[in-house]
């Protein structure tokens, strides 16, 4: 004999990830490490942007590091390591996004001393859908959009664009050649995320990179209330 019964639960499905992300963020805060989660479609230029970002930060006397997520291969990590920054590859083995426990596990295995770095970039798996749901303990979620992708991408992936803190336009050097309609792209970004900051960059020519680097440095100072060193 059985009777029906209602059990109240009221718990977030992703609470395990969210709790771990919170713990990670506490660790990053304690070490004054600004963490940037880079998300985009495959081929938007995350790695090129990151390669130039790491190089410029090191040149300016800063200490960045990077965790790079990919389904397979360690090509990106090898490419980024040329900058001289500590880099570690996360092979997700087919998983379409990074989760907080992957970050936690890899940071532990890596043995990276957080007190020795100032910026940690997490290059997410190229995917504008799934990574939106997972907090990795980052301070800044940067959505990367290349000029070759079409101005309506923000409308096609509103959840990701809404969840991001900043949009970084890449490959601006070929914007004219691919007839990129910047006003339309900017309007679409503002529609799905009113007020979001947008940066225009080209890792190839360096256009806009100084602004991006300065934004990162200022963000870190503001996040941890540091005086300029």
């Amino acid at each position: 004999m059985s009777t029906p019964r209602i059990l109240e639960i009221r718990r977030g499905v992703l609470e395990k990830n969210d709790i771990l992300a919170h713990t990670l963020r506490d660790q990053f805060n304690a070490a004054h490490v600004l963490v940037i989660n880079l998300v985009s479609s495959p081929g938007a230029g995350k790695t090129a942007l990151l390669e130039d970002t790491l190089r410029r930060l090191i040149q300016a006397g800063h200490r960045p590091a990077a965790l790079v997520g990919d389904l397979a291969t360690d090509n990106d990590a090898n490419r980024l390591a040329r900058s001289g920054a500590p880099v570690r590859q996360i092979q997700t083995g087919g998983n379409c996004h990074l989760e907080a426990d992957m970050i936690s596990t890899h940071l532990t295995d890596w043995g990276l001393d957080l007190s020795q770095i100032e910026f940690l970039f997490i290059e997410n798996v190229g995917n504008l859908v799934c990574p939106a749901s997972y907090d990795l303990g980052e301070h800044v979620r940067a959505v990367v959009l290349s000029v070759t992708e079409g101005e309506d991408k923000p409308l096609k992936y509103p959840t990701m664009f809404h969840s991001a803190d900043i949009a970084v336009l890449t490959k601006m050097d070929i914007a004219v050649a691919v007839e990129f309609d910047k006003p339309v792209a900017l309007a679409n970004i503002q529609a799905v995320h009113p007020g979001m900051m947008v940066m225009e960059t080209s890792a190839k020519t360096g256009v806009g990179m100084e602004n991006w680097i300065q934004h990162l440095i200022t963000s870190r100072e503001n996040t941890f209330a540091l005086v300029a060193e």
Partner: protein
Amino acid sequence: MHELSIAQNLVEIANTAAQRANVQRVTAVRLQLGALAGVVKDSLLFCYDIASAGTLLEGSQLLIEELPVVIYCPQCQQTATLDTVQAFCCPVCGTFSNDIRQGRELEILSLEAEEDEHPTHS
């Protein structure tokens, strides 16, 4: 396609709660899904059957309540329900707003379960 991973998290939470409550069999799970949660309903339903196999939730129904985005309009000084996630502006006056009051939910509300009237271990 991260709905399988979401379904596995969901099943783990619900199954653990059911075990703790000495439930024999779960018949339904109620879930709130916001339009901004980044989860596709049909995909989640499909994955739920796979993820729940072999647990107390096997064969149960996943009842999904879809929630639209609700923003607060600073101009009208009231909340407004959006029928899209492609323009975060007030449907009345057109003012853009990032003040999201609903739409990010991905929350298990409750379980419906069957249990023995005289549990052997309570």
